[in-house]
């Protein structure tokens, strides 16, 4: 397979934006509890992020699962690296690891 347009798009999104959340719905109107939880976590930490609604694009919804080798949504990317879904991010947030990771990667909170 020479090129996968969906993968190219995803790569572009996660490269051009420091923090990307592939989610169901939008940050203002999440369509799923797990996605809403991650929006809340990111808002608490005060970091700017791009929310990408996979419900708006079925090929993206499937594509991101193949790209990340992760079967569910939401998915959080920081500086191009897949950090985890809801369970992992929540655990990392509780332990303080998430804030630490963001700092290490040079992602500044806006608040």
């Amino acid at each position, binding site marked *: 397979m020479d090129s996968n347009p969906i993968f190219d798009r995803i790569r572009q999104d996660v490269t051009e934006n420091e923090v990307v959340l592939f989610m169901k719905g939008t940050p203002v109107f999440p369509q799923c509890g797990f996605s809403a939880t991650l929006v809340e976590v990111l808002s608490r930490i005060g970091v700017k992020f791009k929310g990408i609604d996979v419900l708006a694009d079925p090929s993206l919804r499937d594509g991101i699962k193949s790209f990340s080798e*992760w*079967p569910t949504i939401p998915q959080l990317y920081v500086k191009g690296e897949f950090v*985890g879904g809801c369970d992992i991010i929540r655990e990392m947030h509780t332990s303080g690891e998430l804030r630490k990771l963001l700092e290490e990667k040079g992602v500044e909170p806006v608040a």
Partner: protein
Amino acid sequence: MLGQTEQTECSIRSETGWKSVTAMPMEAADIERLIVEAMPDATVTIEDLRGDGDHYSARVTSAAFKGKSRVQQHQMVYQALKGRMGDVLHALALQTSIPSDA
């Protein structure tokens, strides 16, 4: 039928009768069995969060997780479920850990 490559997956159908596989929820025992099949030393605790067979939480402890990141550990559990995650299994809250004596 689910678009997967494996051809001998008939355990779901034989246990609960002839139903459309995509509509049928998974039993906690099935989830546990699949994980232990892939990771024989694993201790698995499954809880049905809403009693609807569709939202589970699982704690998995295994020495096979040693040296792996959380993402890798969870990926191992998803792989053990052979494509069911996100398909017939809607939600599985995962907590993975390594045994203290590993």
